């Protein structure tokens, strides 16, 4: 039962370092706090909004506003889980203990993904309910069409962001390099590409733009996105698969 051995080992690794706790806590706190703040602000501004905005007002999506920042903590979590091995030199000890590199990498990713999924789903539900509480009269209900899908999807979105980061970190090895590319990319570049008309058509195929579609319940007016919520999440999953395959291929070929 070699696979379960490696998974247990990776669970011991992930629970025994401080970065796991602080990155995930930060993701939870930032997502919820910012979601509540923006929900409260939106409630106060609702009456002064243009009519068009009021029609396409999406209380579910508003309550997830904190994820734009919270996902950065998820990125840090995903990057550190993998790149810690390289920055500390632990990788040589780890690969001497588990020389089959596929077993090593995918056990690590499975454990980290499982943990991220639990935290992300809990965060998604919490931020939804607390956000709706802030929205007061403009709130929506979990039972309304598409809402449950959006809330579960929010958890999946954050999990996939963490997985994508793990793959990138496996390719780049250095935590600083990985964060230096991922953080500005998801915080700035992707948003710019997605909002500038010239690049919009390409930008919406980027992992976060495509994936965040799952959290929308009300389609904005004039939206011509060529995929639906699950289609968007599928595009994101393809990005994740690509980064994990890239990470594995490089790990397999490289000297440790």
């Amino acid at each position, binding site marked *: *039962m*070699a696979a379960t*051995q*490696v998974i*247990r*080992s*990776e669970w*011991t*690794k992930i629970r*025994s*370092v*401080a*970065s796991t706790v602080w990155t995930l806590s930060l993701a939870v706190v930032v997502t919820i706090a910012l979601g509540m703040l923006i929900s409260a602000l939106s409630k106060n501004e609702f009456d002064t909004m243009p009519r068009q905005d009021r029609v396409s007002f999406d209380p579910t999506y508003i309550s997830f506003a904190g994820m734009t920042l919270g996902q950065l903590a998820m990125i840090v979590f995903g990057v550190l889980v993998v790149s*810690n*091995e390289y920055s*500390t*030199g*632990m*990788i*040589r*000890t*780890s*690969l*001497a*203990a*588990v*020389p*089959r590199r596929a077993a090593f990498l995918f056990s690590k990713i499975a454990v980290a993904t499982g943990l991220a999924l639990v935290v992300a789903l809990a965060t998604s539900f919490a931020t939804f309910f607390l956000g709706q509480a802030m929205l007061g009269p403009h709130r929506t209900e979990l039972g309304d069409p598409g809402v449950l899908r959006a809330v579960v999807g929010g958890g999946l979105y954050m999990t996939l962001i963490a997985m994508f980061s793990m793959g990138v970190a496996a390719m780049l090895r250095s935590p600083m390099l990985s964060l230096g590319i991922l953080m500005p990319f998801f915080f700035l570049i992707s948003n710019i590409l997605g909002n500038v008309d010239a690049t919009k058509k390409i930008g919406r195929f980027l992992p976060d733009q495509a994936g965040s579609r799952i959290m929308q319940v009300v389609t904005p007016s004039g939206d011509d996105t060529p995929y639906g919520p699950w289609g968007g999440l599928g595009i994101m999953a393809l990005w994740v698969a690509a980064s994990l395959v890239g990470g594995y291929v490089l790990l397999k070929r490289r*000297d*440790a």
Partner: protein
Amino acid sequence: MIELEGLTKRYGEKVAVNNLTFTVRPGMVTGFLGPNGAGKSTTMRMMLGLDRPTAGHVRIDGKRYEQLKDPLTYMGALLDAKAMHGGRSAYNHLLCLAQSNGIARKRVDEVLDTVGLTAVARKKAKGFSLGMGQRLGIAGALLGDPRILMFDEPVNGLDPEGIHWIRHLMKSLAAQGRTVFVSSHLMSEMALTADHLVVIGQGRLLADTSMADFIARNSRSYVRIRTPQRERLLDVLHGAGITVVETGNGTLEVDGGKSELIGELAAQHQLVLHELSPQQASLEEAFMQLTAESVEYHAHTDAPAPRPWGDDWKRG
């Protein structure tokens, strides 16, 4: 048993390890000696499947390292004291290694006790001194109770008591019939622990021999003599056809192990000797001689073969 065959590692143009073939046998401590940068660590990383050889292969009890099921139970290795996550406690570091190879949890406590780290088992490794880190690395190597042990520069950072402890540990592991392979750049260290020597320089195999043979072959033995009747003794020895070298401080030296013959000659001629002692050049000298040649050979391939180290002063 570890078998290397034609093991070669190239980084671009540079050859780090060049066609190494040797066998590390059980029941003894095999010293792996070479100056810094000779390719010792690269060779050890290839033995563990961490680095991929450009050519050749390594077999651990006949198998490739990657083919071993639960490899820590076959072969334990200390690579460097820093190959661990500093934020993790000593106990958890060993626990995650044990779990990955299906080793019982109680074994973690046992090896912590063996290396003397029980008191700091719950402390984070980043607070450890180099010596404590080294001990934790050794605990990791012992974890699977393996038949083969490999230590890369294990005495680095250890205090005298720690050095004594690791020497004793290596010898007792070998005495239990295990294969012990230990690298060092210090010949003096190897002289105290190793039964067999593998010497490399510039990635090439320079010697694969027992410690005793290595000394006999590579170091100069001579007899040192001190006498108040110097001129007479010189005459007697010349008469017997023995070449004597006068060294600066009033002593005489005779190459080879002829102390009995010299003693008998002195007795026949009733000469007083204050000293008649067989000497052997230190192992460090022998090692430097061997590796210096390999360095010189690579540095100026057109130059004539360098004379053995010590030739100049030996002849006075």
